[in-house]
């Protein structure tokens, strides 16, 4: 992987991410996909909501970017895309933004099959507000609003968007660089609604509260929650043990 992706960072911007934040890796993967597809950068629009994930495109990426209300990135993107279909339109935002407060917009955009790509940076908690439970927080995980461990089931986002009719869905860890870049490229190239979930460890909030005392320990912990789809032909998005299955789940 070349360093050409760096050419697409907005000049003068200092990357805003905490040490070890998975979002920095995701930024690189997203831009690498854009570079490798050879897209006209003046016709690419990134839309994001509020939260750490929303900072991946805004201000980091040097294309047109629209930073929106919390939870509403998807409808903003829908409007922009319908107004100008020439725009390659991507939403990059966090799990709280896209799946919690914005969940209804997500499923309706998938159902209506808008030609946009939604990339959800899933760090399993509300990072920017200090680490609260989210609809993607694993059962048992400690957050500031689940001090005794989360007792509520998390969303399986892939099953959610596939149930709503997504044309393409994929889930990878941000540490699975080549696979994630390939998935983002396929998502962009898929006509209609496409979705990529990028599992992105959050050492500062999620890791610290769950007693992971190093960045490496956080990554090991988050990686232990996922299992590769490789060799599994059932199409299941959760393993029998409840692990998040990574891979491509295309519908077309």
């Amino acid at each position, binding site marked *: 992987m070349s360093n050409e992706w760096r050419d697409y960072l907005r000049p003068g911007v200092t990357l805003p991410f905490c040490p070890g934040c998975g979002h920095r890796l995701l930024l690189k993967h997203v831009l690498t996909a854009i570079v490798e597809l050879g897209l006209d950068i003046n016709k690419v629009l990134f839309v994001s909501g509020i939260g750490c994930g929303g900072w991946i495109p805004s201000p980091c990426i040097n294309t047109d*970017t629209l*930073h*929106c*209300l919390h939870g509403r990135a998807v*409808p*903003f993107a*829908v409007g*922009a895309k*319908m107004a100008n279909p020439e725009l390659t339109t991507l939403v990059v935002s966090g799990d709280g933004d896209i799946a919690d407060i914005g969940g209804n917009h997500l499923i309706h955009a998938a159902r209506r099959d808008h030609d946009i790509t939604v990339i959800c940076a899933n760090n399993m908690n509300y990072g920017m507000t200090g680490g609260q439970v989210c609809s993607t927080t694993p059962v048992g995980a400690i957050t500031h609003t689940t001090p005794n461990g989360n007792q509520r089931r998390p969303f399986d986002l892939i099953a959610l968007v596939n149930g709503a009719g997504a044309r393409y869905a994929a889930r990878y860890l941000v540490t699975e660089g080549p696979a994630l870049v390939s998935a983002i490229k396929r998502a962009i190239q898929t006509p209609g609604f496409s979705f990529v979930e990028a599992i992105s460890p959050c050492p500062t909030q999620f890791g610290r509260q769950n007693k992971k005392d190093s960045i490496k320990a956080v990554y090991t912990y988050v990686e232990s929650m996922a299992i590769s789809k490789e060799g599994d032909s059932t199409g299941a998005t959760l393993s029998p043990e409840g692990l998040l299955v990574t891979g491509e789940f295309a519908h077309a």
Partner: protein
Amino acid sequence: MPWRTADSVLPEGRYYFTGAEALAEGAIAAGCGYFAGYPITPTTEAMEHLAHRLPEVGGVFIQMEDEIASVCSCIGASWAGRKAMTVTSGPGFSLMQEGIGHALMTEAPLVVVDGQRAGPSTGQVTVGAGDVMQARWGMHGGIPTIATAPWSVQELYDGAVHAFNLAEKYRLPVLVMAEAATMHLRESLTVPAQLEVYERDKSPGRPPFGCDAPDGVPPMPSFGEGERLLVTASTHNEWGFRRTADPLTERVLVNRLYNKVMMHVDDISEVEGYYLDDADEAIVAYGFTARAALAAVQELRDVGRKLGLLRLKTLWPFPAGPVKELGARVRRILVPEMNLGQMVYVVRATADCDVVRYGQMDGTVIYPASIVEAIRRTA
């Protein structure tokens, strides 16, 4: 020149339209290229009209999953270069407040029509005008935008054009505070052959969020034009970079947003006077209620009362000049409203005379007889 003379989309002539149809056709005449909405009485008919008419003229129509998504998608479309509009009523208008704030902060031209009904909450689907203060103070932050108050089918058509022109000229959300009474009214409409339309200044290479003038409106290029726009509703500098802990950036931004409205009240805000030349008492009214007020004035003129009417065509920014001037020469002003008293407080703070409230909130329009009685009672 940003102003251009456009040919009417509808053939010139007289039509017999509902307010909803007139509003929709006015929007099309103004160049509306994107509509998103969610059904709600009493604006559904405008939406239904646009569902078939807008695609015919090359526009985009979409029914969204709720009012939040509707207004947000309009902002996305506005930044992508189209003139955008949504229509709703009280409950939806409440849901849209945060989005209206986003449009205000990112300076995205947008038209939001609120066909007001009787509230609070779902209230009644009948007539009311309870959202006029919400138009000024509904969104958090308290920065003013523009709100108009059409009183007829004709003014829903003309007012839609005017609203788009103001939105584009000042780069902000314009709120058309219509009412169920006018949306559902059917009366004659005159469509002129041509109209004046304002097209946004897209000058490239200049900062899209700042300018030297403290009340200025920066140019607004669209997405896809190579400007690499950085658009955020967080506090930002002239190029869009977030400066969320910098007092100076916030001060410069919000003062300009305030000034670009409040320093142009004379250009934006319109009133209409009836029988005011010799009046020693007056009614200040807006929207549908102003029709009843005019009838009441005429009735009382017939029996010798020196009564006049000042109609607020624009609610916000409040046309303080004419109201202040009126207060200096009449002994008393009555403010009838289809709510329990909202604009009356602004009139009272502006006019240096006795200002009397007449509020009615029961889902019916105020009849001329009620205003006549109110005038007589408070004589």
